[in-house]
């Protein structure tokens, strides 16, 4: 909780700043609209958190989101009746891509940076090949409801976000969650305590794939079908997680902070937008944030090392 506080403070300040410029933001409808817009990224960041806290990266999620949306549009092609089996298929695709990322990273020992970078290119290329550059088909109304519809006054995506967030928090409190963080902190110690570190990491990638699938479903409804829908989302998700104070390299940080990081990032974009600063600057802002956040984390590390010097080679031989 101690480590979650800073990002919550930053978030509160940004929300207050938005409210100052745009009083509508304080009304339930205004605030819910903001959360609705943020929901896909927050869910994606929660998925990315599992991977990062275990000491890995998942760069494939942006492409995966695009794949989900493009595949959904083509398979549904406007037929309402196709909605449900396509939804199941989309989740399965997300799980499968996560599984592949995890197995390649752990069993073949390919660094996840490379595994998921490769997966990102493979998926982008596949989408391009399959669509010929322009996505075909259309989503059904039922499908689009998740991204833009309401249940009473509350958007569906906000409800899905709440459910996903609660699941993520519970998961991190479970034995699996504690094993995951321990693996990210000290893989060797975890393995020698009986943790199946490979299986644990694979599950983290699978969760990230599932989060990307859900994000794709929400974004398809919210933003519509395009071959660029997931572009750059992997970096937004990583930026959000790092902004939440989660250490790259694993072992440190909470999923609540990661999700708060995503909300903060979205709030920042909203604010920039309100001040009329070009949306094109979003990438630049993310770049600055990710470097700054990691630098702050790195500054703490040398101080830690100074306090905990590596064990001296003892002259212990007889016995």
């Amino acid at each position, binding site marked *: 909780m101690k480590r979650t506080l800073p990002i919550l403070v930053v978030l509160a300040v940004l929300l207050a700043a938005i409210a100052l410029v745009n009083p509508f933001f304080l009304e339930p409808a205004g605030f819910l609209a903001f959360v609705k817009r943020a929901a896909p990224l927050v869910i994606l960041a929660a998925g990315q958190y599992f991977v990062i806290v275990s000491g890995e990266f998942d760069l494939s999620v942006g492409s995966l989101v695009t794949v989900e949306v493009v595949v959904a549009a083509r398979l549904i092609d406007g037929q309402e009746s196709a909605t449900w089996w396509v939804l199941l298929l989309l989740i399965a695709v997300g799980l499968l891509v996560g599984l592949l990322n995890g197995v390649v990273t752990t069993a073949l020992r390919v660094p996840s940076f490379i595994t998921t970078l490769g997966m990102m290119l493979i998926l982008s290329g596949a989408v391009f090949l399959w669509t010929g550059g322009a996505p075909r088909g259309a989503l059904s109304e039922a499908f689009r409801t998740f991204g833009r519809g309401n249940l009473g006054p509350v958007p569906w995506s906000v409800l899905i976000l709440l459910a996903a967030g609660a699941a993520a928090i519970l998961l991190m409190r479970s034995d699996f969650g504690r094993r995951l963080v321990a693996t990210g902190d000290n893989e060797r110690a975890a393995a*020698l305590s009986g943790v199946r570190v490979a299986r644990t990491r694979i599950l983290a990638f699978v969760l990230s794939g599932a989060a990307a699938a859900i994000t794709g479903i929400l974004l398809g409804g919210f933003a519509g079908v395009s071959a660029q829908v997931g572009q750059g989302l992997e970096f937004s998700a990583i930026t959000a997680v790092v902004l939440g104070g989660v250490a790259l390299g694993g072992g440190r940080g909470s999923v609540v902070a990661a999700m708060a990081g995503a909300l903060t990032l979205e709030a920042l974009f909203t604010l920039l937008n309100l001040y009329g600063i070009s949306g094109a600057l979003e990438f630049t802002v993310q770049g600055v944030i990710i470097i700054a956040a990691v630098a702050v984390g790195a500054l703490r590390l040398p101080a830690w090392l100074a306090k905990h010097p590596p064990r001296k080679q*003892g002259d212990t031989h007889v*016995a």
Partner: protein
Amino acid sequence: MTLLGMRGIGKRFLGVRVLSGVDLDTAAGEVHAVVGENGAGKSTLMKILAGVHVPDEGTIEIDGRPVAFGHPLEAQRAGVAIIYQEFNLLPDRSVAENVFLGREPARRGLVDRAAMEAETRRLLDELGETSFGPRDAVRRLSVAQQQVVEIVKALSVDARIIVMDEPTASLAEHEVELLYTLVRRLQRRGLAVLYISHRLREVFDLAQRVTVLKDGARVTTVPTAEVGPDELVRLMVGRELRDYFPPRAAPGEIGEVRLSVRGGGNGRLRGIDLDLRAGEITGLAGLQGSGRTELVKALFGAEPFAEGRMEPRRPRSVRDGVAAGIGLVTEDRKAEGLALRQSVRDNALLVARATAGRQARGDVRALLERVRLSPPDPEQEVRYLSGGNQQKVVLAKWMTVGPAVLLLDEPTRGVDVGAKAAIHDLMRQLARDGTAILMISSELPELIGMSDRVVVMRDGRIAGELPAGSSEEAIMRLAASGEAT
């Protein structure tokens, strides 16, 4: 003619005195052995000579001129080279590149490869080394050959005093002979060699004089011709057992066999026969590299046996070992024992969460009180704890699953006196509750004080077994030469 004179060297680390008033001198063309038990101060003394540590007291003279080293490079310029047990070589660079690392000869601004290789070749020839050349990649050399590269490196900076820290620790038997030849060549070139070793045979084979250190002070310096091996051992360990240990197991308290191995072997171990009994603490002794750590890792399943029978079963993985009721407290608790940035609770529950069902959870606070963690705060991050408290958390981690067999590799290394006593008490308590315990310790007084019997390893085998209360001399003799008394 005295080449090096160290006078009254004293050093403290964090207020703890590790060296006081140590004198050491050596002459050109002398091999001077430095011996002593663990923690006697050998390494610290050598690191002071090499400029790694700055002494708090005392003076160093080379050729009668006082010197003061604030940095290893200054020691190097004064002609001191140190060859550590862990070599400082770049595995993917060539021999010549390693020898000239950081001071490559240049010609018109480019590295003069030819000159570098020619000079390396000349030094190799001088040492009579023909089995490899300047262009070979270091990765492809044997440990013994890499040692030669280190020596060539020392010669190429015109070292006159070479410190060798346990040079034979990682060498095979036949390579030791080659090292002897090499050391004698250095000696004939007029270098002084300070030779740190615990292997008494080497001391008597090579050195003209030997300095014995004990508890940070010099006991004596004598010509090797005037002292025998038994006398030397007595000088090294001769002291009272001043530590207090909990009483040993009474004969009735030692119960059934909890773990048994017959003919256990793998890459590092051969023909291991061992029984561990409920209620008994078995001490495991052996020189570094004798296979102690490898044995406990094999028993646990982390580096499994490839052959042999084991009851109740031969674990093939860590989880297999844990399922068979075996726990391992590793030698290096920071690298292998703890997730340092997690809480005490998360560390204490790690084994249970990884391997047992929900029922094996128990009351964490009560457990922390039982291992006498002070304060018993489950939310504290482990990295902020003292070494002793960290080790108690590691013990708690295993106690959650109540192992039948607990393997402890150096359980009190780097632990303060109070925590040490607490860990000793806890070990005895666990034994009394029916756990079979195997303990490795490089501290002989501890090993003798705690063990109901001592098993001694040598070269990957069990060299023999000694009863409770055996002397340090008896253990060392068995460990060093395989001879029982």
